[in-house]
């Protein structure tokens, strides 16, 4: 294949270099730069020289431990019961603020706690907000990736039917994909509104007034869910189209054969369609996962991470610190952690879906 006619080092480099150079400069360099910055105390604008501080950015973000607290007892060793009928405990502060007996907990704050016998187990972390952002992001990925993938497949099967007008339905289902997620987020702020929101009115009409209505984005329990629903609504058409192109690679003779054999619809899907979609499935899963980890615009436009950090995400934290507080090294450290997370999850997905 390596013909003399097509060998040219000079032309080859000259043609590839502009494109490659741009990628090197604006993707590869910042990628490695992130690792470097995460080991320093770099700020966007600072009069002081940048110092190398080792892993302490990572320690500040990731330090977490479980603190076991014994209930308060009276002079006889009896457990004191508070007004709520629960044992009362000394404040977490007393362990984490300059307590010489527990240097390992110094500067940590409570994230959440549970009860184990009389003792309280308190999870404390140096950077509780970061841990919350990690939890929210993982939750978003774990719900959105399978759900959006499945809904997209369902839609693809629907519009893949040989019926009149399918093109129109396909075009409609795809439509939100071309609308910016920023526009969609602002639009849904109104739809999710607690007072005049469209969703409350629709649900109340559908339930003949039984549904009371709620402030979807204003409550800790529903804000992230509302953002998930909207994100799926906006992006599902994209993955529907990818499934569709997968469906169209399956040979029609396989379907003919299965109908001659008298296979049911489910059997046809299970033994013909699904195996034919293997590669597409891996691709869809990985693409949705990567997009889900990058969750930012929805948060920035709709909730700013609230209420009570219930919708803050890893990218939102990286931007808030790196740009908002000009703490470049802190933002870069979060970026590195995010990248390692995305990489790990993609590798696990690849491993689980490998050809056996």
């Amino acid at each position, binding site marked *: 294949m390596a013909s003399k*006619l097509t060998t040219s080092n000079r032309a080859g480099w000259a043609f590839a270099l502009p*494109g490659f150079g741009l*990628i090197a400069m604006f993707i*590869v*360099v910042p990628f490695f730069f992130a690792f470097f910055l995460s080991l320093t105390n770099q700020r966007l604008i600072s009069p002081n020289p940048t110092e190398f501080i080792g892993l302490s950015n990572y320690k500040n973000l990731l330090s977490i431990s479980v603190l076991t607290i014994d209930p308060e007892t009276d002079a006889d060793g009896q457990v004191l019961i508070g007004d709520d009928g629960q044992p009362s405990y000394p404040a977490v502060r007393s362990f984490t603020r300059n307590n010489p007996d527990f240097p390992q907990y110094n500067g940590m704050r409570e994230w959440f706690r549970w009860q184990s016998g009389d003792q309280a187990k308190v999870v404390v972390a140096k950077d509780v907000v970061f841990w919350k952002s990690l939890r929210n992001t993982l939750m978003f990925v774990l719900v959105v990736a399978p759900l959006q993938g499945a809904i997209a497949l369902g839609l693809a099967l629907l519009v893949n039917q040989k019926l009149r007008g399918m093109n129109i339905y396909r075009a409609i289902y795809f439509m939100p994909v071309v609308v910016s997620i920023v526009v969609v987020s602002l*639009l849904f702020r109104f739809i999710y509104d607690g007072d005049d929101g469209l969703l409350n*009115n629709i649900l109340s009409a559908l339930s003949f007034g039984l549904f009371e209505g709620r402030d979807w984005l204003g409550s800790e329990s529903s804000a992230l869910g509302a953002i998930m629903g909207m994100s799926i609504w906006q992006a599902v058409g994209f993955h529907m189209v990818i499934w569709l192109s997968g469906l169209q690679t399956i040979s029609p003779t396989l379907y003919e054969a299965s109908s001659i054999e008298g296979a049911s619809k489910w059997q046809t899907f299970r033994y013909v369609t699904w195996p034919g979609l293997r590669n597409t499935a891996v691709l869809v899963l990985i693409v949705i996962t990567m997009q889900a980890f990058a969750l930012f615009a929805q948060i920035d436009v709709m909730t700013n991470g609230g209420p009570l950090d219930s919708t803050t995400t890893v990218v939102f934290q990286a931007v808030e610190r790196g740009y908002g507080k000009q703490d470049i090294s802190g933002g870069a450290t979060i970026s590195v952690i995010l990248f390692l997370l995305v990489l790990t999850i993609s590798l696990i997905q690849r491993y689980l879906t490998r050809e056996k």
Partner: protein
Amino acid sequence: MATINPDNHGLRLATRYVVLTLIAVIFIFPLLFMVMSSFKPDLQLLRDTSGIRAFLPVGDLSFDNYSAAFKRAPVGTFVFNSVLVTGVTVALSLFFCSLAAFSFVFLNWKGRNILLSIIIATLIVPFETIAIPLLLLVSKLPWIGLEGLQIGWLNTYRVQIIPWIADGLTIFLFVQYFKDLPRELIEASRVEGASWWQIYTKVVMPLAGPVMATAAILKFLVMYNQYLWPLIVVQQETYRPVMVGLQYFFQLNTAWGEIMAYLTLITVPVLAFYLVLQRAFIASIASTGVKG
């Protein structure tokens, strides 16, 4: 299998269309609501959300919200900036990425495989993970312009354009497409003494229409919808694009009519563009699913 009598068949067909249409309603109605609301005064807009009127062009309709939106923010500037940045980036991206892909597919040279592997590897790096280090990088980059040497790219058009010209996906799409072109065509042109530049411009690019459309549409969507990057590198409203301009509308007192007008203004042209080129849009997304 049960025999299908005509009535049964008709019923099943009707059920299918009902299901398809109900789903279509879910996708269309929020957008319809946005467009309709943009013509209504705030009071009526809020009242209408309680019923089907929210989706209908009824009541007191006018362009008042639009003129109010133009008064509140330099909407014209935002639109101009977005169109400029998107147009220039798409054009440069098509040129640089096709040129590189041409070299990777048709030329033999040392280092070719390594460079291509690096480019493909960048596909697993989400932009969000490099945004912060890139922010620091562009704030220190030099630039030689009409005013001489300057340091820092913040608050410019170039900071919104240059980092987005080349990307792994676009190069990958061109590489996949070029691989399917007959190599004999290239070799024959070489025998006839054509230069590489001539082969690129006269032989290969005239055949690259479909992949150009795909790459242009994908890049267009990315660029027009940019949010995070311009948010952190552009603080001056003279250079802001439309999506960042949104902030003018939800920070002070929220006037939903104006917001809906602005959203409609920046969305409907794209939707119209999509509806006209619907097949090309869908084909371009589908082609990203072709596994290499």
